[in-house]
């Protein structure tokens, strides 16, 4: 657990409206020194507004922003000492690569020698040494991204904000750059907030994630927590977990360490839920093809779709009681399955989670 002393920035009950639409609704979160926190969510969920509010580019209608012990809610952006990377990079077209990176240093009133040294250092950090005098028009998308990163890191910001910094690049480049970005951020030991709508990107870069929807933070935690213990149907849906079953009854076993959970598809033996709950979510990779018929943690269904996906097979089964469920099967015998077959699937209890009732 992270203690209170390491909190770098705290947002308290921030609300922001644009006319009739509520962009942020009573949002509270904090970021700890040295961590990378992702704000993840679909477009329009308020993640960019939250980032701009932290940046000072947007002032909240109510609520506060604190940096360490100081309230900075209405402090203008240029006094905050944060860095920001924009989606389209926002490189200054009238300045060379080196002059772009030096801009923040000029604003700090650094000497020319200091600036040059720092620009060199930054270019080396992002692997672009010798690019000082290039025009930004000569750069590829990936290079522009690196210059933008170097520019925002050059003044040594206490917090760096990244607004979908890879959003305008193509998929393959993005996958490569996200690893690079992560490595650079950890090398300079900075604190960062990373906005993205891409789950893979968020998983790859962050220590913790805040999943947002409709102007609220829905769940905060590590990637694993969010994925394995979604506290809300929205969270499950967002991660593509569509195998959601209503719970008919829960009967604790004598020992108390487990309970029998009854659903329309059969019974599961699980650790008892911590909170009132009405739904089960089963991750797609939790199922294995099983010849044996019936029993606990076992379901039966008819194959409606079956496709080869390289590392695995994707299987869709139909169940009269709950409709279609989706699975990823990593077994060799999956090859023998055909559409129309009746199959049995055994479910690993590790892959099953309760969705708390209040999260509905």
């Amino acid at each position, binding site marked *: 657990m992270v203690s209170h002393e390491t909190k770098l920035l705290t947002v308290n009950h921030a609300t922001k409206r644009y006319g009739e639409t509520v962009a942020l609704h009573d949002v509270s979160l904090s970021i700890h020194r040295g961590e990378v926190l992702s704000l993840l969510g679909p477009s329009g969920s308020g993640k960019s507004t939250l980032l701009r509010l932290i940046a000072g580019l947007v002032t909240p209608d109510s609520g506060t922003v604190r940096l360490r012990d100081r309230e900075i809610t209405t402090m203008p952006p240029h006094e905050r000492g944060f860095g920001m990377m924009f989606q*389209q990079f926002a490189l200054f077209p009238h300045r060379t690569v080196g002059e772009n990176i030096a801009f923040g240093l000029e604003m700090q009133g650094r000497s020319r020698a200091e600036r040059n040294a720092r620009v060199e250092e930054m270019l080396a950090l992002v692997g672009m040494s010798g690019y000082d005098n290039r025009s930004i028009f000569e750069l590829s998308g990936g290079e522009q991204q690196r210059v933008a990163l170097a520019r925002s890191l050059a003044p040594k910001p206490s917090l760096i904000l990244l607004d979908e910094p890879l959003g305008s690049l193509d998929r393959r480049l993005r996958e490569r750059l996200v690893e690079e970005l992560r490595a650079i951020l950890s090398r300079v030991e900075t604190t960062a907030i990373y906005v993205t709508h891409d789950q893979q990107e968020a998983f790859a870069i962050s220590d913790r994630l805040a999943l947002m929807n409709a102007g609220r933070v829905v769940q905060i935690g590590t990637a694993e927590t969010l994925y394995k213990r979604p506290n809300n149907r929205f969270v499950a849906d967002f991660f593509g977990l569509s195998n959601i079953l209503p719970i008919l009854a829960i009967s604790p076993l004598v020992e108390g360490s487990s309970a029998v959970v009854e659903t329309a598809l059969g019974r599961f033996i699980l650790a008892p839920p911590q909170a009132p709950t009405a739904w089960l979510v089963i991750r797609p990779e939790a199922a294995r093809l099983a010849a044996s018929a019936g029993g606990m943690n076992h379901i039966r269904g008819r194959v409606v779709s079956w496709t080869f996906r390289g590392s695995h097979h994707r299987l869709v089964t139909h169940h009269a009681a709950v409709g279609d469920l989706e699975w990823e099967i990593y077994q060799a015998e999956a090859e023998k399955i055909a559409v129309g077959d009746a199959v049995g699937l055994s479910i690993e209890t590790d892959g099953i989670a309760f969705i708390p009732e209040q999260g509905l």
Partner: protein
Amino acid sequence: MTALRRLLVGLAFALPLLFLALFFFYPLAEIFRVSFLPEGRLDLSGFAALWQRPYLRNTLLFTAGQALLSTVLTLIAALPATYFFARYDFRGKTLLRALLTVPFVMPTVVVATAFLALLGPRGLLNEALMALFRLDAPPIAWQQSLLMILLAHIFYNLAVVIRVVGGFWANLDPTLEEAAAMLGASPWQRFRRVTLPLLMPSLGAAALLIFLFTFSSFGVVLILGGLAYATLEVEIYRQALTFFNLPLAATLSLVQMVATFLMMSLYTALQNRTTVPLQLRGQESALRPLTGRLRLLWLLAVGTPTLFVAAPLLALVIRSLQVRGEWSLRFYRALGETGGRSILDVAPELAIRNSLLFALATLLLSLLIGTLSAYLLAPPQSGQRARWRSLLDPIFLLPLGTSAVTLGFGYIIALDEPPLNLRTSALLVPLAHTLIAFPFVVRSLLPVLRSISPSLREAAAMLGAAPWQVWRQVDLPIVARGLLVGATFAFAVSIGEFGATSLVQRPEWPTMTVVIFRFLGQPGIENYGKAVAMSVIIMSITIIGFLLIERFRIDDIGEF
């Protein structure tokens, strides 16, 4: 194609070139000849006189000086408003922008009269102040002063800054400023280090345009500057019409032509640069709403120029409807009365009729020449004939950059002898107007023509349409809007034209602008009233034309 059709098409395309040769290049060549060879021998003493005679030197210095001053003052006056138009969303924005653009299309004579109606000795302001403080003489005595000229020039060119710089500014990615803010730049540093350098090409373009327009200022200076001040243009007019010193007028015209040409080339070069950063615009750069403290600044930045633009025009209307403090239509009725005995006492009615006739003739001629020119220039820039066309393009733009007075002067020295003696013909006026107006028609039509996909015409042909049917069914419906805009331009230009008209007009064929100028120069409230009333008529025609153009023009066509 049959040989006959080829010949007809060739002739049709030759017509605009012939027109340009006769009514543009020939008069200009005559200016060269009269200037360099006044007595048939090479004589450069005229050029030496430009600098040796203090009077001429002062005229040159004044022309450049007032243009520089006008340019700087206009930029200062317009930039705050430009910022709000480019970056903020507010109610009535389109309307306000249109209102601020109205002066740009106003004829000079009207603007000069409007400023007299507001600030002149008989102006509204003076009258109000005299009544308020019981004064015997008008307290504001700005007539025939540099201040009055500068005010009118600012009035004219606010729109240039708001349109040229504002359009560019609105396309600047606002996240660039945000990025600068995040890097520690204060609002002033953001403007100074990021926005201003990026705006520079457009500021340069606007400044050059304003300098060009005010350097060539004629009507405003002639009327508001009186005898005390003269730009090159005014001096050409005086030398040609008052002193009959044709060689000197020709030399001055040459200077004017060279200066204009230099500025036009610079402007074109700058314009090419202003198009570069447009690709840098962010995807969703929403305009900010006005809030709190900003409203006050907005009122100052946008309200002041708006008032400044509206006041003279309103004063003009009010002045035309008031006779000795009473509301009356007498000045308008006076326009219908026949003139007195003197040749200077022309019937205003006659001038109105002439102006309308000339405007109609200009409209028809401009549409004919303009449409043919546009078709000559329109086909895609490729293939063997492309090089031909890349030569033609600037030739058809040249008339746009030539000052009206120079043109008029060229006409009187070139078209006054056989084989082309039109000096006594009323035709000179619509011919000069057409030369000024038809480039606008070309510019309204060209983009439209170029946008018609050839496959449309091919499809029509494959469906059995003969060539003229293809034109009737495919081209015409698409081109109609451009034609309407071009026609309106031509009509409005002709009605308000003063520079060329003042030189080529015949006393028996006066136009409205010439008559207004004449009335302003004569004593008596009656003459003043007629000038004001007639100015209101021209102003109304211009505003209606402007609204028509704004309504029908396709984006980015017909600006400047």
